[in-house]
Structures are given as C-alpha cells and as structure tokens.
C-alpha cells in the first residue's frame, strides 16, 4: 500500500460522521422542544407537590418520557464529532500528543453526565404513586447534573484553544479565532457550575446565565465547530488528493 493510499484510509468516512451531526441535531432539537421542562425551564423553587404534579400531569408525562428516551438514544452521538476534532488536533504541528490526550480524556465525560441526568429524569417520571419528596429529589439531581456539570466541556474547550494557539505552522489546521472562540465558550459555561446556589434569578437552573447562556453556548459551539471541522476535513482531503 502506498503512503497516499494509507492516508486516504485515514479520512475515509469522516465526512459521513460529520454529516451525522446535523441529522442527530434534529433529534436533539426535537427532544428539547418535546420536554415540557425545557421550553419554559422548570423553576427550582417549586415545592415537592408542584414538582410531582408537573411530572404526572397527563399532558406532560408522555412528553417527559419520550423526549428523555430520544435524548438517551442520541445524546452520546456527539462523541464521533468530538473524535473528529481530536483527529484534527493530531494533525497540528505539536511536538507531543499531550494536548490530544487531554482533549480525548474529556470527550466521554460530557455525554456520560448528560446520560446520567437523563436517567434521573426518567426515574423521577417512572412511578406516579411515589412520594413527591422522592420525585423532587430525582428532579433536583437531574437538573444539577444537567446544568452544573460543565467541567468536561470547559476543559475540552480550553485544551482545544491551547492546541490551536500552539499549532505553529504556515497553514494551521484551525484559524486562531477558533481558539479565542473556544475560550469565550468556556467563559460562557462557567456560571452554570454554580447554579445550585440560587433558587431564582439569572444563576438558578432556569435562569438566563445557567440555562439560556449555557445551552446557547453549547449549541453555538457545536454549530461553529461543525463548520470549521468540515472545512478542515475538506482541505485535508484536497491535500491528500493532490499528493496522490
């Protein structure tokens, strides 16, 4: 096998993985709109009885269950996309693989924690006859896990930014603004880590900072990174085609 044939095997199928992103995004958006606790985020100040009434309202219960099943199916579908970013880090002009090791170390964390939050929501919705205090407990655990567990996303954005800044070659894999953008996203995610401190206001899990800014930042990050990763893969394939 020649060297060019070997390298084309390296990118083979990557565009398919990348195109899976807009497809699974449709499922994410659909599930987001279907879950009645997201479109108008559930206030943390609700009493246990109010939380239980929300869950077991016949208009809400099927939507809670079905949306969380869809999230459970497709939440982890972010991982192949994150792996594409990790492979682009490997193409950067670094002397060591340490930053790609750091980035890969973060990849599974975010989707796993999201999966745990998803299960807490499903458990809360499972048995209408359960004590409302227990329903509230699992609802709290779900929201705390969903909202405040930003560390893997923050760390992967910061490691990616460092990788971009240290990619010192004539034609870097990503432009420097992508590094700045990642640091900005990390900063936008930070307040959500402290969401459990407040039961109302912008910091609370239904507030502007912890819900809209944080989730908006994640959506924006996925969209922008999807575009720049797509550009990088296409350029890589053109280079490989020219080399062949």
């Amino acid at each position, binding site marked *: 096998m020649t060297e060019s044939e070997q390298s084309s095997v390296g990118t083979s199928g990557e565009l398919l993985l990348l195109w899976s992103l807009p497809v699974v995004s449709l499922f994410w958006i659909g599930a987001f709109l279907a879950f009645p606790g997201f479109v108008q985020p559930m206030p*943390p100040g609700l009493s246990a009885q109010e939380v239980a009434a929300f869950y077991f309202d016949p208009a809400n219960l099927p939507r809670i269950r079905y949306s969380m099943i869809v999230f459970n199916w497709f939440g982890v579908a972010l991982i192949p996309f994150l792996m594409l970013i990790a492979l682009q*880090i*490997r*193409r*950067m*002009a*670094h*002397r*060591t*693989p*340490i*930053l*790609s*090791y*750091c980035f*890969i*170390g*973060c990849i*599974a*964390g975010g989707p*796993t*924690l999201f999966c*745990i939050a998803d299960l807490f929501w499903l458990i809360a919705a499972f048995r209408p006859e359960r004590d409302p*205090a*227990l329903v*509230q*407990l699992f609802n*709290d*655990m779900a929201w*705390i*896990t969903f909202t*405040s*567990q*930003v*560390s*893997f996303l*923050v*760390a*992967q954005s*910061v*490691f990616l930014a*460092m990788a971009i800044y*240290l990619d*010192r*070659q*004539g034609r870097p894999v990503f432009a420097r603004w992508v590094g700045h953008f990642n640091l900005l996203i990390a900063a936008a995610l*930070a307040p959500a*880590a*402290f969401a*459990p*401190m407040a*039961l109302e206001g912008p910091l609370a899990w239904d507030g502007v900072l912890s819900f809209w800014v944080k989730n908006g930042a994640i959506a924006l990050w996925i969209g922008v990174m999807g575009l720049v990763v797509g550009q990088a893969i296409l350029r890589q394939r053109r280079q490989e085609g020219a080399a062949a």
Partner: protein
Amino acid sequence: MTAALAIPAPVPPPASRLGRIAWQWRHNPKLELWLAWYTIVVFYNVFGIVFFVVTRTKPPPKAWWGLPRIVEWFAENRLGLLTGFGTIFFMGAFATASTALIVYSIRRMSVSPAFAWSYRLLYSLAAVPGMLLTCIALVAGAMRLDRDPRLLGLLYDMGFLSFSGTMGIFLVGSVVWAVAILLDRNGVLPKWFGYFNICNALTEVVVATCCIVKEGPFAWNGVIAFYINMVVFGIYTGVFITYLKQMIEHEEPERDYLPNRLALL
C-alpha cells in the same frame, strides 16, 4: 511541516518577568508538557482547598452520625458546599491533564501501548463516580435544607460512599502503571516508584471496609479507611507530580519526543 517540528534556534530570554513568560510561550520546546504539568499542580491545589477548607468534607464527618446531626452538618456547611463544589463542577475535568501526562510517560517506556491505553481508559471516567457523584449528592443536600431529613441522610451516605467509588480504577490503574514502570528499560521513572504504585493500589483494598462498617478505624472517617489512606495518597500524588516534572526536565526534545502525528493511539 517538518520545519515546524524542528527545534528552533535558541533565542535568549529577555530580562523582564513578563518578557520571560512571553519567551517561554514562544520558544520553550517543552511548552505543551509544561502546560499539562502546571494544570495538574493547579488542579490538585484547588482540589485540596475545596475538599479540606471550603467544603470541609475532608477529613470527612462521621459515618455514625444520626439524622439531626447530619441535617445540622448540611446547614453549617451549606455555602461552602455550594461554592466549593461549584468550583469543582467548573474545573474538575482539568484532572484529565494528569492522566494525559501519565499516559505520555507510559508511551515513552519500552512497553506495549496497551499499558498506556489501559491506563487512559481506566481513568477517563474516574472523575464521574469518584468525585462528581460525591459533589452532586452533597450539593443536592445543601441546596434544599428543608428536605425530609431521611433524604438528607441518604444524600450524605451517597456523597461519602461515592468518594470511594473509584476503588477499582485506582487499584487496577496503579498496578498497570506499576508493571509498566518495572518492565521499562528506558528509565523514564524510577523503579522504586513502581513499587510505590503497588502500595497505593493496596490502600484501595483497605478503603473497601467503609462500605460495610459505620464506626471505628474502618469507617469512612476512620484511622485506616481515611487517614492512612489519605496520607499514602497524598505522598503518592506529591511524588508522581515531582517525578513527572523531572521527566519533563530530563527530556531531550530531539531524542525523546513522541511527535503528535506519529504517536498512533
């Protein structure tokens, strides 16, 4: 590309402090490794301050306390738990730098990449059961003190037992690193540290008793399950951070580096 990977000609650092930092950023050929190493130092310092000072969860409160005392403990430490663990929720994943540098050390050894991969996979999710679940449970308790005391008691147990939730990861992970160090012929890390890894692994055997007993030296706050375990882990962490620093210092860029694209897996 090859030119970008070559070692640049030495440029003398300027005299000013800021100038020296900028020089390191531009010219230090080991910058990537140093960034990872300093991330580890910052992480363990913040980790220590959060657990020992801000949240007062280490040394842990008593496993044998009754519900009224547990409720009181949550009330006393509410602000510390919420701010301290908020800090962990923000930056806890920077611990991956530690795994990354250790994996790098194993990749430089004369052993199969299977060791490095095993270590990486073992530790890649260690933070979830071993640290974040603890924080989530105790934060859930602290955010709503008017919760049924029985549920606060449950969250208290979940918090402190989850902290031992990585027993197997540290047990097997330390042994994997130990065997790699002992088999290595490149002299990346000293042999005695390989044996010390086994010592660290054994503490995870001792700590298992905290899942069974609520009082005495084997409880989660006991002399054996907490204090001896913590002393060994503290020394172990200090030693491996020091040895990783020495590994970076002793590296010769042209000879020892794993280039990014060539370090398959």
